[in-house]
């Protein structure tokens, strides 16, 4: 478990991270979402004890990172796939990391195998593709078989195969009961992998909720199709809904739930061809939360709804 309390980091007058309080729990994938410069990487550096917080604290399994003995056995982190010496062979990179924490040498071959790099272990990292470097970074994170895993932008630069592979890996690590924190600005990816989402913008925590709740609670619409859309559109508008025509055929309805729409149609003898609730994509939710202008427009909506 990762616990942050009032975590704050100031660089000069700039607050990179502003009073963050959150818990990252085991057994699920927690997504750390935010635009560039939101403070995700700073927070990760604070978690790993690379930077010292200006105020507040963050603990891993109840202890500050710097107090962990052999931290690689408790926390594995992928920070920047490029952060390896290009002249060093992949195997040697993992070997020195293992040696710092008294991790048995055999683990090097094991993590190379788990990340599909067995054939590349003897090669110098400088010749690696970004995808291979990413795999090597993940191999390094898995080296100490840690309970907590932190991946900063893990799908960056991966080809479709690699993305598929890492998605499976992240899910399986959480299924093994580990604490998994992944940061990303790729909403679509997060929607597929994360169970829980922390949304960060300008150093502040804007949202801390389950993926399902987040997508359900905020926005979305209902797609309605009938033989002839116009009469139903008039009726729904009269009941306070906002109705917009769909590009091809049909209506996008907000402000009424599917049951109310069905009831209205039934009362007036209109046959429904399709009635599909469409949850907002995480991307929309994210943009609404992080963009102050969009947020201003979006927030009154729940009160307006009914």
């Amino acid at each position, binding site marked *: 478990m990762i616990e942050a309390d009032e975590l704050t980091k100031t660089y000069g007058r700039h607050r990179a991270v502003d009073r963050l309080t959150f818990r990252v729990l085991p057994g699920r994938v927690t997504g750390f979402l935010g635009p560039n410069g939101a403070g995700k990487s700073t927070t990760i*550096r604070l978690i*790993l*004890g*690379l*930077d*010292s917080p200006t105020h507040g604290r963050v603990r891993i399994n109840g202890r500050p*990172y*710097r*107090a*962990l003995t052999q*931290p*690689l056995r408790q*926390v594995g*982190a992928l*920070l*920047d796939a*490029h*952060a*390896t*010496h*290009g*002249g*060093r*062979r992949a195997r*040697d*990179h993992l*070997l*020195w*990391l293992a*040696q*710092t*924490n*008294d991790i048995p040498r055999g683990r090097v071959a094991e993590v190379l195998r788990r990340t599909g790099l067995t054939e590349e272990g003897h090669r110098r990292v400088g010749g690696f593709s970004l995808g291979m470097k990413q795999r090597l970074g993940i191999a*390094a994170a898995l080296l100490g078989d840690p309970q907590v895993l932190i991946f900063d932008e893990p799908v960056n630069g991966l080809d479709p195969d690699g993305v598929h592979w890492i998605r499976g890996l992240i899910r399986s690590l959480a299924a093994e009961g580990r604490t998994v924190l992944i940061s990303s600005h790729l909403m679509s990816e997060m929607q597929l992998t994360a169970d829980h989402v922390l949304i960060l913008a300008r150093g502040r925590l804007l949202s801390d909720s389950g993926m399902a709740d987040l997508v359900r609670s905020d926005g979305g619409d209902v797609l309605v199709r009938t033989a002839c859309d116009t009469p139903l559109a008039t009726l729904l508008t009269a009941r306070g809904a906002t109705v917009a025509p769909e590009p091809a055929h049909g209506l996008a309805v907000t402000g009424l739930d599917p049951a109310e729409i069905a009831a209205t149609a039934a009362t007036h003898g209109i046959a429904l061809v399709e009635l599909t609730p469409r949850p907002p994509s995480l991307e929309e939710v994210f943009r609404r939360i992080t963009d102050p202008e969009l947020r201003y427009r979006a927030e009154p909506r729940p009160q307006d709804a009914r």
Partner: protein
Amino acid sequence: MTRFPTSLVAAEWTKLRSVRSTPLILAVATVATIAIAVLQARSTISAWDSWTARARAEFDPVFTTFTGFQLAQMAFALLGILAVTAEYSTGTIRSTFAAVPRRGRVLTAKLLVLGTVALVTGLALAFTAFFAAQSVLAGKHLDVTLDTPNVLRALLGQGFYLCTAAILGAAIGTLLRHTAGATTLTTGLMFLSTTVFKAISPDGSTALIHWSPAAAAEGLTWTTFHDPDWPPPGSALIVCLTYLAVGITAATWRLTRRDV
């Protein structure tokens, strides 16, 4: 710092031996010292008969054939610099400190490994270059042996000074975190400080000049001819140890108090 973990020393050794710059730098130092020692010995014996009495008096069978060691000193300093700055430039330093949050220990292990490698190689180079040069000088019976006064001290001093250069390079690398900056400062300190100290010293005063690392190196490695600008061997040792102490203290302070 109870029970210093040998695992960190093993890790630093793996780091040092697994990059190409290490064997490359050591190879350059080896070729430079031994080849130059042999070449200088050869040119000495071929020109000896035409040398003036003064030139013959200033000839030092060890020191004169050890010019290549200046190149080795620079190479060893670069070995130390790169051992630290390459971690910063590649970003490896974050992995290092995530793996070992006690940064002072990382520095200690790094300096131990670096110092040992530099000392062992430095001594090997000094003795090899010595025997190579003396075998050539024997052609004119100009050679000396390990029993000759000051010779053993000069060879040990050369090895020790190479070790000092490597550690000082690593300390300056830790302070500046940047290869080019650290190389400039280290080169300036090691090779230009004599000139600068001389320029700002009052006439005839050698007190400040003796604090130049290059003068200290010369003070450690002469055998027959001694320039008054060079400190006596004991003082030269103290000068080196002072630079090491200041460098290591500053590096530790910087490392433990600053974010990565």
